[in-house]
C-alpha cells in the first residue's frame, strides 16, 4: 500500500469523486483510488475469469483493511463452497462471518420448481438484502451473479424493472456494490446489465495465445474519474488478485550516480574502475555456454557480500542446480540464501504467460525488496509471449525495476552469435550497459571473449578481453599478444 502511494500519489486529494479502496494489489492504482463510493460497479467477463474472486476479495479486504463489513449474495455457489474455495487463497470467510464482518447469503433459484401466475416483484430479494446489510452494518455489497435471475424468472419486463429498482435502492442505501455478470456475445454481459450499472465497468478476460493463458483486466468506463485505459495483466496468486499496474511506469525515475561493483575486479576496471551505475540496467549477451549465468551469480555474490539483498529470477535452472554449478567456480550462493540476502525464484518460462511472469517478478520484488535483480535469461521469457508484445512487457518490467532504483542484470542468449549486435527484440536499447560474451575458436580450442559494447555515462574499455572462468570465479585478461591498451 505504502508503495503504491509513493508511485502514483494515490494519497493525493482528488476532487472528483469519493472512492473506496479495494485493497486489491494494483487495482487501486489503475483506478486512481478504488471503486466509486456508494455506487455499483459492474465486473464482467467469461466463465473462470476471476469475477467471483475479485468480488469476494473486495469484501474481504474491505472488512480486514478498511473496517467496512460486506454482504455477499451468491446466486451460484453455496456458502460452504465459497468458504472452501477461498480458504485456499488465505481468506478465512468463516471467521469473518463469525466476527460479523461478512454475511454470505446463498440465493437458490430453480426455474423448474417455480410456476408464475400474474404479477410479482422481487421484494423478497430486497428484504433479504436489507436484513443482511442491517445485521452487520455493511458498507459493501456483492451480487454474484445477478444474471442468474434471468434464468430463474421468465417475465423479463418485471425483472428489468426490478433490477433498475435494485440498483437505485443500493445507491440510496449508500453501499458500494460490485455486480458480476457473465460476458455476452455482443454485449458486455448476457442480459445487458451495463445498461443499469453505468458508473464503473471492469472487464476481465482470460485468453489463451500460443497455449499460454493470460488474464487481463480492463476498465471500460469509470464515470467521473480518470482511469488507466490499457489492458492490465493480472494474476490469481496465493493471496488473491494482483494487477500489474503499468501506469506507475513513468520515465521519471531518479538517477543515481553511485556505483555498484560487478563482483569481478577486472571488469570493474574496464568500467571506469568503479563498476556499474546503481539502478542501471545491464545486459549480458552471449552464445550458449559463454558464461552468462556465472556472470549473474558473481554479481549477486558481490552484492550479498556488502549485506544487500539480491533477487535471482532463474528461468532455466532450478535453485539447487544453480547453487551446485556456481559452487564449482567458487561462488557459494547457499550461504546467502541461508542468511536471507538472496532469493532465487526458479520458474520455467513456459509455466505461464509473460504477463504472469511479470506479475510474479513484480510481487517478488515488492515482498523481498532487493537492491539487485538478475533475470537469467531474459530471452526465454520472451519465448513465453508473442514477440511484439514481449518487448513492451519487457520494457515494463525493466522500467518498473528502474523506478524502484533496482540494478538489473539480464542475460540474453544471442542466437546468431556472429553478428550479435542486433540483440533480441532490441532489448539493448533499454539497457544502459551491454556486455557481450562470445566464443572464439582458435585451432582446437574455444576461447571466451568479452567486450563492452556500450555503457552509458561512463568511460569504459573498448578492447575485447580474454574471459576466464576459473575455480575462483571470473577473470578478464588482455588477449595474449595484444598488449596495447586502447582506453
Amino acid at each position, binding site marked *: 500500500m505504502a508503495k503504491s502511494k509513493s508511485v502514483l500519489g494515490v494519497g493525493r486529494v482528488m476532487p472528483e469523486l469519493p472512492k473506496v479502496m479495494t485493497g486489491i494489489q494494483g487495482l487501486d492504482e489503475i483506478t486512481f483510488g478504488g471503486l466509486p463510493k456508494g455506487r455499483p460497479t459492474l465486473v464482467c467477463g467469461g466463465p473462470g475469469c476471476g469475477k467471483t474472486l475479485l468480488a469476494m476479495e473486495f469484501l474481504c479486504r474491505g472488512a480486514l483493511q478498511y473496517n467496512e463489513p460486506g454482504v455477499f449474495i451468491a446466486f451460484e455457489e453455496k456458502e460452504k463452497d465459497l468458504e472452501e474455495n477461498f480458504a485456499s487463497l488465505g481468506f478465512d470467510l468463516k471467521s469473518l462471518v463469525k466476527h460479523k464482518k461478512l454475511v454470505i447469503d446463498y440465493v437458490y433459484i430453480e426455474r423448474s*420448481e417455480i410456476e408464475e401466475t*400474474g404479477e410479482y416483484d422481487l421484494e423478497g*430479494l430486497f428484504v433479504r438484502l436489507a436484513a443482511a446489510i442491517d445485521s452487520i452494518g455493511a458498507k459493501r455489497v456483492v451480487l454474484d451473479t445477478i444474471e442468474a435471475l434471468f434464468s430463474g424468472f421468465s417475465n423479463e419486463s418485471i425483472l428489468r424493472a426490478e433490477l433498475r429498482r435494485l440498483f437505485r435502492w443500493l445507491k440510496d442505501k449508500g453501499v458500494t456494490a460490485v455486480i458480476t455478470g457473465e460476458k455476452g456475445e455482443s454485449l458486455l454481459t448476457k442480459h445487458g446489465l451495463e445498461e443499469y450499472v453505468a458508473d464503473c465497468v471492469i472487464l476481465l478476460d482470460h485468453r489463451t495465445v500460443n497455449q499460454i493463458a493470460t488474464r487481463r483486466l480492463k476498465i471500460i468506463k469509470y464515470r467521473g474519474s480518470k482511469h488507466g485505459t490499457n489492458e492490465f495483466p493480472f494474476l490469481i496468486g496465493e493471496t488473491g488478485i494482483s494487477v500489474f499496474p503499468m501506469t506507475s511506469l513513468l520515465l521519471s525515475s531518479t538517477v543515481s550516480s553511485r556505483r555498484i561493483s560487478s563482483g569481478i575486479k577486472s571488469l570493474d576496471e574496464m568500467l571506469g574502475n568503479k563498476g556499474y551505475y546503481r539502478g542501471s540496467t545491464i545486459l549480458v549477451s552471449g552464445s550458449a555456454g559463454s558464461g552468462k549465468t556465472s556472470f549473474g551469480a558473481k554479481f549477486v555474490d558481490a552484492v550479498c557480500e556488502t549485506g544487500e539483498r539480491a533477487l535471482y529470477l532463474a528461468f532455466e535452472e532450478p535453485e539447487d542446480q544453480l547453487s551446485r554449478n556456481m559452487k564449482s567456480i567458487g561462488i557459494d550462493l547457499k550461504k546467502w540464501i541461508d542468511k536471507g540476502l538472496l532469493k532465487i525464484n526458479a520458474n520455467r518460462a513456459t509455466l505461464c504467460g509473460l504477463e504472469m511472469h511479470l506479475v510474479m517478478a513484480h510481487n517478488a520484488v515488492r515482498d523481498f525488496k532487493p537492491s539487485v535483480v538478475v533475470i537469467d535469461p531474459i530471452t526465454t521469457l520472451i519465448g513465453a509471449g508473442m514477440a511484439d508484445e514481449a518487448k513492451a512487457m519487457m520494457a515494463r518490467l525493466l522500467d518498473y525495476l528502474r523506478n524502484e532504483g533496482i540494478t538489473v542484470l539480464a542475460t540474453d542468449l544471442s542466437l546468431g552469435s556472429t553478428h550479435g549486435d542486433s540483440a533480441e527484440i532490441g532489448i539493448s536499447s533499454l539497457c544502459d550497459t551491454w556486455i557481450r560474451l562470445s566464443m572464439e575458436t582458435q585451432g582446437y580450442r574455444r576461447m571466451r571473449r568479452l567486450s563492452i559494447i556500450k555503457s552509458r555515462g561512463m568511460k569504459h574499455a573498448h578492447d575485447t578481453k580474454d574471459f576466464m572462468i576459473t575455480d575462483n570465479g571470473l577473470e578478464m585478461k588482455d588477449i595474449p599478444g595484444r598488449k596495447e591498451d586502447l582506453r
Partner: protein
Amino acid sequence: MKKAAYRLKLYVAGTTPKSLEAFANLKKICEEYLKGQYSIEVIDLIKNPKLAKGDQIIAIPTLVRHLPEPIKKIIGDLSNKEKVLVGLNIINKG
C-alpha cells in the same frame, strides 16, 4: 384430486394490494377445490426477514406448497386459476 393434506405458505412483504389479492385468490381456489384439507400460513417478510432464506424466497408474493411433497413454488398474484391448480398439482396439466 389428491387426498393428502395441503400445507401452504404464502410469503408477502407488508400488506400490499398485490399480497392481499394473492391471498384472496388463494383462499378462493382452496375453498373451491381443497375444502377441509388445507392450511394456509401467511408469512410477512417485513416482520420476519430471516424466514426468506428457508424457502429461498426472492419474488413476492410466493406461494410454497410444503405438503404434499415435493415442494412447489408459485409466484405472482395467483390470478390465473388454471396455473395455480396445475402448479399445486390439484389438476394435471392439459
